[in-house]
Structures are given as C-alpha cells and as structure tokens.
C-alpha cells in the first residue's frame, strides 16, 4: 500500500488513474486501469475498436463517471469534479466530431474561450469590442492559425478541416496545461492532417498532450509514449519502437488493417 501511495504522489505525472473501472450493464469497458500521463509529454492511447480507449478518454475528460477507482490531477483527487471544473484546472479536451459553435462567427468562437479566461463572461450589458483586448487577442490567435480571413464567417460554414483548426485555436485560447485530444485526425484529408499535426507540434511546447488516435503515422510522429489498450486493460506501454515490437500488441492487432 505504501508503495502505491508513493507512486500516486509522483510529481512527474500530471494525470494518474488508480484502478479505474467502468461497467456498462455488467460489461467491463475498462477494468482496473492504472494509467499515468507524464508531464510535458505527448502520449498516445491506441488499440483496436472496443479496447476501451474512448472510455478511458471520456472518464479522464469527465464525460463519463467511473464505476470504481480514482483520477488524480497534480496529486489531487479529482474523481468527482465535473467538466467545467477540470477546464478551470487547465485540463481541456477536444471532441471527436469537431465541436465549434456553429451559429457564431469564427472570431466569436475564439472570443468565447477568451471571455472565460478573462472572467468577463458575466458582463451583461457591455460590448466585447471595448473590453480589455479580447477581440485583439482573438484576432492574433486567428492569424497564428491561418484563420484570419475567415474571422467573420459563421463557424458552421467552415470546411471540416478548418473547423478542426478552429477548435484547436479555441482550446489553446484558454492556454491549457493539459490538452486532451479525441481522434484529432478523424475525418481529415491528407493535407489537413499535415497541418493539424504541425499545429499540435507547435502547441505541445510547455504542455502535456494526450491523444486517442487511429492514424499510426501521426502517432509515430507526435507521441513520445504510447499506451496500447486491449479489452479494457493496458496491454503494453512504451515508445513507438518498443510497442511495435511487443508480441501482445501484434497479437491484438493481428488480422486488422491498421498501420
């Protein structure tokens, strides 16, 4: 027990889970998983369909509540916190299906995130343009992400790739310490994958990034460390080379067209 407690308080890890379990009507989507996310790393979770990676992601992002076990952030138990509270702690997630505010302009999308950060969101009667640089900061972010010319476009009318970029820009507007990305490349063409990969490379400086991803080229390029999940448990963990050579992983993927 003493040994376990020591591990839990290890400051090298931003997020840790302790025997994290989630059941759906008796089916164990996740069974006693002890997962650790090292500070300032890019960590990918992979595995065949139904392996529990999305469940793990949803538990970490508070989209689901665990059946048993605990989640720790910076050594503190955050198992019972809700999604907004995690965001305020600097842990921000993205969504698998790109999540933009479709009825707001691109500029307004980023402003919303900046409003939360600046505490202006409860201003009932003011105008945004007159406030402490929110509009200017939003414009600067859009320039950095190559969205400046679309600032006045309704976000819902953007192409799918641009929606992904906008989502990333909105997330980074909060300057999160931990970035949780749910299949960031899903549904993207090759060109967009290159762009988004470069943006993540850029965003990782001074941050911890966790991503669930199917595209192995992207995983190989981005991730320092990889966790392979099979049937609700961690099957292997290590660098890309270590994991690729692991017999358990090869067995799990046999016959599947991943790669």
């Amino acid at each position: 027990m003493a040994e376990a407690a020591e591990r839990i308080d290890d400051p090298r890890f931003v997020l840790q889970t302790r025997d994290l379990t989630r059941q759906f009507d008796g089916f164990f989507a996740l069974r006693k998983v002890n997962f650790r996310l090292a500070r300032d790393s890019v960590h990918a979770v992979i595995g065949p369909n139904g392996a529990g990676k999305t469940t793990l992601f949803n538990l970490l992002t508070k989209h689901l509540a665990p059946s048993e076990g605990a989640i720790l952030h910076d050594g503190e138990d955050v198992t019972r916190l809700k999604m907004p509270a995690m965001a305020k702690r600097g842990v921000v997630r993205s969504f698998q299906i790109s999540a933009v505010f479709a009825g707001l302009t691109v500029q307004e999308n980023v402003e919303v995130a900046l409003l939360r950060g600046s505490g202006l969101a409860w201003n009932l009667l003011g105008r945004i343009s007159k406030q402490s640089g929110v509009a200017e900061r939003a414009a600067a972010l859009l320039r950095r992400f190559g969205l400046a010319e679309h600032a006045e476009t309704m976000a819902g009318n953007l192409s799918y790739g641009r929606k992904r970029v906008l989502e990333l820009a909105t997330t980074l507007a909060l300057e999160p310490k931990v970035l949780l990305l749910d299949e960031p490349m899903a549904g993207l063409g090759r060109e967009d994958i290159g762009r988004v990969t470069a943006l993540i490379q850029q965003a990782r400086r001074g941050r911890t990034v966790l991503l669930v991803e199917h595209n192995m080229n992207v995983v190989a390029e981005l991730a320092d460390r990889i966790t392979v999940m099979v049937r609700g448990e961690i099957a292997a963990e290590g660098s890309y080379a270590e994991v690729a050579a692991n017999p358990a992983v090869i067995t799990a993927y046999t016959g599947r067209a991943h790669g």
Partner: protein
Amino acid sequence: MTTIFGVPSAVLFGQLLLGLVNGAFYAMLSLGLAVIFGMMNIVNFAHGAQYMMGAMLAWLLLNFLGVGYWWALILAPMAVGLGGVVLERFLLRRLYGLDHLYGMLLTFGLALMVQGALGNWFGSSGQPYAIPAELTGGRNLGFMFLPNYRAWVLVASLVVCLGTWYVIERTRLGAYLRAATENPVLVQAFGIRVPRMIMLTYGAGVALAALAGALAAPVYQVSPSMGADLLIVVFAVVVIGGMGSIMGSIVTGFLVGLIEGVTKAYYPELSGTVVFVVMAVVLMLRPAGLFGAKLDGAGGHQEATEAPRSSSPRAHIVLALAAIMAVAPLVVYPGFMMKAMIFALFACAFNLIAGYGRLVSFGHAMFLGSAGYVCGHAAKVWALTPELAILTGTATAALLGLVSGWLAIRRSGIYFAMVTLAFAQMIYFVALQAPFTGGENGLQGVPRGMLFGLIDLSKPVNLYVFVTVIFLAGFVLIMRLVDSPFGQVLRAISNHEARAQSLGFETDRYKCLAFTLSAALAGLAGSTKAIVTQIATLTDAHWSMSGEVLLMTFLGGVGTPLGPVIGAFVVVAMQNYLAGVGQWVAVIHGLIFAVCVLAFRRGIVGEVSAWWHHRGSRGSGAVPSTGQAVPGK
C-alpha cells in the same frame, strides 16, 4: 364510523378509488405518449385533443347515430387512430430530422384547431354520457361502495396497459419496434418497412388516447376542452416517470392518481397542484425521472446555424420604433398600440431565452400572470405608486423565474418545455384559488395612480408615453443583453453545450440567469399590463397565453431582434380585428402554428432577411456568408 387519521374511511377509500380511476387515464395517456416518443421522437401535443376526440366521437355516435357504448369503444379509437395515420403520413413525416420542438409545435397547433373548432360547434359546456346499462349500479365491499363502471375502467385500462407492455417488450413485433427506435437504417436494411411501421405506431398511440377518451366519457363530462388540462398533468407524469420505460409510464400513472386521491381526502386545496409538487421534488432528487435511464441530451449538441449577430448598430432600429410609436396614435387606436407594445415586450422577453438560449419555455404565462396579480395587489391594496407596484410585480416574476428555472434547466429540449408548462399550470391553480386574486373574476379596479407621485397616469397621453418608454427600455435592454459577452456565451451554450462545458463554463448557471432575466422582463410586461388595463385576470396565467407568446415569437421570427415585436403586433391586430369570429381565433392561431412549422420556420423577419440576403448576393455576385438557417441537425 371508522376514521383514518381523522378522515372517515368511506371517504378515504372513495377518494383512493377516484384517484385510481384518474390514474388509469394518466397511465393510458402517458403510455401512448411514451410509445410515440420512443418511436418518432415527437412529443405529441395533440394527445389531449385526440383523447377528447375519442370521447366526443362516442357521444356523437350515441346521440346522432344511436350507436351504443360498446361499439363506440371500438369505432372511436379506430376512427381517431386512422386520423392519426393520415396526420403522420402527410404532415408529421415532413418534420423528421428537424429539432423535436417542431413536432411539438405542429401538434400543439393542430390541437388548438381541433379544440377551437369543436368548441365552436358544441359549446364549451360538458355533455353527460350515460353509463351503459350492463355496468350501472355497484356493490358494497363492506368498507366502501364500488360502482361497477369504475371497476370496469380499472380492469379495462389495466388490460390495455399490460397488453401494450406485452406487445412491445415480449413479442417479435415489439422487438422490431424497439430495434427500429435504436437504429432505423439497420432495421430498414433487414427488409422491414420502417416508415410504415412508424406510421402505424403513431396511429396505435393515438388510438390508445381515443380509447381512453371513450372509456372516460361516462366518468367525466364530455367537452371539447376535457383533454387540454389533463394533458398537462400527463406531461408532469411523464417527467416524474421518465419517458424511457413503458412499465414506468404505467406505474407512475397509477401512482400519481393515488397520490392525488390521498391528497383530496386529507388536504383538498392541494389536490390540483400536488402532482406538480411531486414533479419538482423528483426533478430535484432524480432529474432523469423515477424510471428514466439517462438524461436527455445532457452532453448532446445540435448544429445550429442561426442568423448572424448584426454588426450594424441597433440604434437606428430603436429610433425607428420610437418614431412609429410616436406617430401611431394619430392613425391607430392608442389602446391597441399599448396592448401590442406590452405583448411585444412579453414576446421579446420570451425570445431572449427561446431564441438566444434555445430553451423553449411552454410556461411563460406564469410570469406575465403572477406579476400582474402582484402588481395589481400592490397598487390596489398596499396603495403603492405605479412604479413601485411594477417593480414589485417584476421582482416576483424574477424570483419565480429563478426557482422554476433552477429546476427546469435540469432537463433540456422537449422535457424543458413540459416542465415549464407543468409549473405554469401549478401557478394557474394557485391564482385560481388564492384569496387575493379574485378567482374567475380577476383582480379588478387596479388604480393607475400617480407615477413617482407626480404624473397622473389616468391621463391617456401620460399613460401612452409611459408604456412606450417601458417597451423601448425593455427592448434596448434585451438587445444589450444579447450583444453582451454574457449573450455571446449564452448563444455558444445553446449551440453546443458540452463544448461550452469543456471550455470551463458552468452552463447551468448561465442558463438559469438567462431564464431569470427573461422571467423578470415578462413580469415587467405583466405588471405594466395590470396598470394599463386596471385588471389582472386568469387569462394571463393560462397555458393558452404561453402558447400565444410562442406563436408571436415564432411567427415573427425566433432569434431575431425585431421578430417578436412584429409577431406580437400581427397577433394582437388579428385578435382586435377578428374579434367578431369568436372562438375561431383559436383555430386561426392553430393554423398559423401549423403553417409556420411546415413552411416558414424562420418566421416573417427570418424569411424576409433570407430573401434579402439571397437577392443581394445574387445581384452583387458575392458569396452568401450567412448560409441557410437550418434548425436542428
């Protein structure tokens, strides 16, 4: 004579039996709602009207064709069910894939039309329907007297409910139905004709309502309005039980009936409202309902492309409105203008929450009505000056909005609509029974008084200017709210709530504040109305008023700044100039609802501005940046 906790046992058992009989009807109706909702994701607001049609048809068959009870029990559900099939095939089917609210609005409009038309032909007074000869009389059970007909209703409804449960949960047909609910495309691929199955399911759900109506004919009075109030209670039952489970609907229906029965025996004053109190408690402790598995769309989102925030200054709109209001009394009767402005403010307040927050309340009349009563009471009995009386009324509505909003925002979409409707009905019952409201007569003789102790509001010019200032101030305030950082966050939340949460917004707080503000502004309209008309009445608290404000806002254009104003003026003008047609106004309202939902979902302002953009972009060759307003997914 034996008594139980001070109530004679015969009385208690009598009330329990009555409660069970009521519960039988709640169960049958909420069962039909659950089946229809499970299959089509439509909340059938016409369910009450279809129940009423079953009873009316039974009565008509007996009185005009001499067809007796037993045949009516078969023919009435078949006829109404067939009507349901036609309705699904030609109207409801057009709404699949849109926001669930449109199905609700369409069926609400159809219900208004049917109830209004039948009310015109047969009057609103109830008609008795004789108990069939085979079931007259009753038997003495020793501890109570059991009328045979009531025993029959209980047995029949239990058989129907359990039979429906068996078909859905235990047979092959039911398995197909449940599978089609989960994944219609897959089931279609198995070679089952899903659209036809949906059509027949709707017909069966409707027939179930009509059967309940025919069964109810000898118990209650047969009248065109018998279904409307019942439906609101059934909605509360649905929220209490959770719509996910068939057995849950049945059990909750009987349970609520029993609770009402017990309340009637021990504390009759509360019997009308107890179901809504139970609903509030369930919302607090178990928001998904007693048998509900999961919360509706708590993390879900809808892709919504709405009209863009207008970058042009709003000042010219306000100036134009002010100019129109200043000139109008020269042309139009000032009384009409004041009434229209008050309703316009009411509709703008509603638009704040429905248009920008995407929380469509079906109970906004509670704020208009309660503020009117409190303001009237403050001016008349406490002799407050008009501005203080209005402030008191507005504050009351705000408080009511805070409490009801705090509970209602635990559910979203259609459930939110049902919860607000149920709360409003509770307030209506309070207004009906409270000692200071004057019951059916209303609170009369509210003095207009001296504004700030200086300006005599009984002078027509002063009153007109006063109402104009309040309307314009309210309009400007709402525009400021919409354009503020808070308004921007509110629109973001209504677009994609889960995303807003992931950015760190505690979305419930924002929604609750927006709801409270909307309630307060509706209260401002209600208070002003009480001062202007010098009376506060039950009409302003009735559910039909909640429907009217929905109509005004949707007709004018929901989510546009001027839409509710234009909608309010059109509806009030219609009421004024079509006053001669009496009850037909309800039918016309219903018709407008149906036409708006089916053909003009953007409302007057939305359609005109879309046409304008389209025209402009074609003329200049520019790319339209706003796109089409596509509600729902």
